[in-house]
């Protein structure tokens, strides 16, 4: 018994030495930042159809627009809202009027001054049906009136108090663009949106790359930036490399400097590569989770929902398939949301208890294939999977879930499809299980995902409440929370809401929405901007 331990000793010494060496390397004084150079960024996200994130409004647009557009406020690493294009703000007693003080020394890169009229034009642009905005349109939904009180004073009047207003304003989909540029036709503005950011869009070769050049007059860094003035890099080449293995190969060969959407196997092997570093920046809003559709049988019965959650043990799968790069979550909310509550006790695995629950629920007969039945009907669960959203490791995890649910008598039918077909299945209610990521800044995402209003489809057919959770008590709590500006009161309400959601077994949380960047050690000063964990290269520089 002792022998292995003795053998391990030199190993652990070696490991500690390596760790110490790592510490020394890290504590070396950082070199002086140098100006110049072009950084090549390779994204695995889809190429945006439009570089103006007001139009539609998806994550790929948010990633790239963070380089050239800026928002009224930002968030720091502690989750506190900090000034950006707005320096100060006050909320009226009744929560219906917000006054923002704006920076008075900032210009858009086309020379148009940034002022209250510009802010007004942007909110109106988001609300204009011609813009066809989705994400930004939702974020400013409660804004009824906008008034440019003075050049540096803008007043918003709301239809109802909105405790999430500042969080909404911190998102890239509500960033502020030049009103002069917005007056151009949409195709032109999509090609070359104009903002106040540290870089300027100068060229877009479709299916290839976007070129971003330094804004020499830049002076509006967010309050948590490392330096002031213009960016250090001359330019960024923003390449679209859809294949994950190619992206990693290009990073290894030095053809690109930073990659996003790094896959677990690459992150794991990069840990042994001295010239590659990792940045793990989970996205805000909801954690990745499996929703149990309570809107129809068999999950309209809480016992069947609980039985499903008791029957699957996802931890070994997450550990092995993600090579230890993803941590199991026991919360509906992302770990970056301060309001998130983690409840591991709710999600314990117990196949025997699951079988008892199914017996009680009437699924007490077993057919020749080993699946449970009730009144001659098999206990079947349809699980559409978006292959555009679920990475291969996640798809394999779902296969493991399928296998362990079978032991208890659930038949899980996995249906991998492309994004459009996947939404088609959701819109026609042809699913019992689904995993749908949702990014939004702040705990108000709970209202979007679990308020019964969100079961009513948007005009496009979309609805966010995929668990089809309809509970008047929960609705009341979420509405109150969205209108409560007192932080601790709000926190309590969200805790209460989360306990209703998890105790009702409507969701099975898996892990944070994964957002791993790998980058060359020659890139310094690179970080993710806290609001939606998009990369920012304002402080970044190339050391060789």
């Amino acid at each position, binding site marked *: 018994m002792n022998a292995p331990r003795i053998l391990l000793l030199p190993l652990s010494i070696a490991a500690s030495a390596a760790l110490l060496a790592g510490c020394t390397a890290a504590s070396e004084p950082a070199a002086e930042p140098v100006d110049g150079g072009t950084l090549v960024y390779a994204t695995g996200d889809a190429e945006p159809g*439009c570089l103006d994130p007001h139009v539609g409004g998806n994550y790929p647009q948010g990633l790239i627009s963070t380089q050239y557009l800026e928002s009224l406020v930002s968030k720091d690493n502690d989750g506190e809202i900090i000034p950006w294009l707005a320096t100060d703000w006050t909320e009226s007693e009744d929560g219906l009027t917000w006054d923002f003080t704006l920076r008075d020394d900032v210009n858009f890169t086309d020379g148009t001054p940034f002022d209250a009229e510009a802010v007004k034009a942007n909110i109106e642009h988001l609300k204009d049906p011609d813009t066809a905005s*989705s994400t930004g349109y939702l974020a400013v939904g409660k804004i009824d009136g906008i008034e440019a009180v003075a050049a540096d004073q803008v007043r918003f009047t709301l239809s109802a108090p909105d405790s999430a207003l500042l969080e909404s304003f911190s998102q890239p989909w509500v960033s502020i663009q030049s009103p002069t540029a917005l007056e151009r036709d949409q195709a032109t503005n*999509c090609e070359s949106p104009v903002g106040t950011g540290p870089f300027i869009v100068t060229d877009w070769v479709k299916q290839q790359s976007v070129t971003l050049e330094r804004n020499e007059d830049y002076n509006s860094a967010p309050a948590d930036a490392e330096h002031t003035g213009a960016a250090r890099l001359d330019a960024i080449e923003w390449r679209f490399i859809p294949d994950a293995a190619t992206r990693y190969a290009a990073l290894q060969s030095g053809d690109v400097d930073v990659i996003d959407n790094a896959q677990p196997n690459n992150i794991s092997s990069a840990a042994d590569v001295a010239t590659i570093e990792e940045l793990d920046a989970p996205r805000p809003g909801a954690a990745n989770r499996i929703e149990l559709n309570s809107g129809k049988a068999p999950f309209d019965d809480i016992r069947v929902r609980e039985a499903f959650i008791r029957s699957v043990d996802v931890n070994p799968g997450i550990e092995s398939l993600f090579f230890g790069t993803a941590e199991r979550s026991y919360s509906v909310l992302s770990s970056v949301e301060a309001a998130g509550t983690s409840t591991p006790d709710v999600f314990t695995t117990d196949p025997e208890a699951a079988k008892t629950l199914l017996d009680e629920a009437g699924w007490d007969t077993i057919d020749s294939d080993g699946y449970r039945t009730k009144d001659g009907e098999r206990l079947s669960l349809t699980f559409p999977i978006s292959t555009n959203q679920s990475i291969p490791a996640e798809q394999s995890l779902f296969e493991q879930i399928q296998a362990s649910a079978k032991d208890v008598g659930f038949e899980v039918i996995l249906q991998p499809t492309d994004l459009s077909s996947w939404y088609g299945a959701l819109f026609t209610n042809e699913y019992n299980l689904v995993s749908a990521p949702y990014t939004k800044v702040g705990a108000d995402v709970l209202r979007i995902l679990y308020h019964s209003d969100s079961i009513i489809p948007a005009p496009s*057919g979309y609805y966010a409440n995929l668990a089809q959770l309809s509970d008047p008590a929960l609705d009341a709590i979420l509405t109150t929370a969205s209108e409560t500006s007192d932080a601790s009161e709000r926190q309590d309400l969200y805790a209460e809401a989360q306990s209703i959601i998890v105790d009702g077994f409507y969701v099975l949380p898996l892990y944070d929405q994964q957002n791993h960047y790998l980058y060359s050690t020659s890139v310094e000063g690179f970080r993710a901007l806290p609001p939606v964990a998009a990369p920012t290269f304002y402080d970044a520089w190339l050391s060789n």
Partner: protein
Amino acid sequence: MTVSTDAPTAASVSTPATRLRSLGWIARRVGGGVFVLWAVATVIFFALRLIPGDPVDAILGGPGSQASAEAVAQIRTDYGLDQPLIVQYFLAMGKLAVADFGTSYALKVAVAPYVLTQLWSTLVLTLASLVVAWFGALALTLATSGRGRVARALGSGFELLAAAVPHFWLASLLIILLSNTLHWLPPISVPGPLGLVLPVLTLALPLTGFLGQVMRESLTNAYEQPFVLSARARGESEWGVRLRHVLRHAALPGISLSGWAFGSLLSGAVVVETIFARPGLGRTLLSAVTIRDIPVVTAVALLSALTFIIVTIATDVVDRIVDPRVTEVAAR
């Protein structure tokens, strides 16, 4: 050297009657091509509406949009999506008939110039691959057929292996070998010829194997023909026999298959362009299908079909030039 004995009756080609027959033949091919284009457009039109997913989503910036009712209604009117399907179909065909490909749902730009720039990139890739595969197959078969057993076994073994390898696997292998290990080539497409090497190799190697297999067979048959014997009897060297007499026969099935091969290269381009992050029709098609950008899908499909038709006609013409017997048979 004059017309050799292995190309019989070449003199009979240019009588007025045969020329007329040739014109009629070309007219039939072109008419058939137009029919194929119409069929492609029709199938694409209905197929894209039968699969789940609303084209409005593509216009709204992708599926999952929560845009306002006004926005959705406006888009339906603007793009004519509120009309009955059959009306939409005839409107679409009418526009296609005058080469109006419309505006991309996702990119909001005119489809025709956008897709044409992507076509150029794909043409460079596929034609380069075709040429490389052709020369590769010729060199391989000429060097190893009719030789000793070992050479033949090596040659046909390579052909079998190459023809069976899937593109995505070969691409990964080439990246690991030539890019990550030997550091000779960039793993992603970069401007200039260097960035073209890996994508072209990936597409060309399996085709080399396939063409090689076909050429080897006809080459082996040609060796047994009397004209080879008589050439040898005239004292022609071994390479002289191969290049001047046997090559033509070996090339024939290769030429006939080039049209088909080009089609397979176009479909292979979807994988290769995605893996090597190279712009082109394949990648454009993939992303357009994913988000149901119908005008772009239609244009890419039509353009691919058109290119395929042109190449097929071209190979048929070349076939008739290289082997006049084809005309004779067709005319009978």
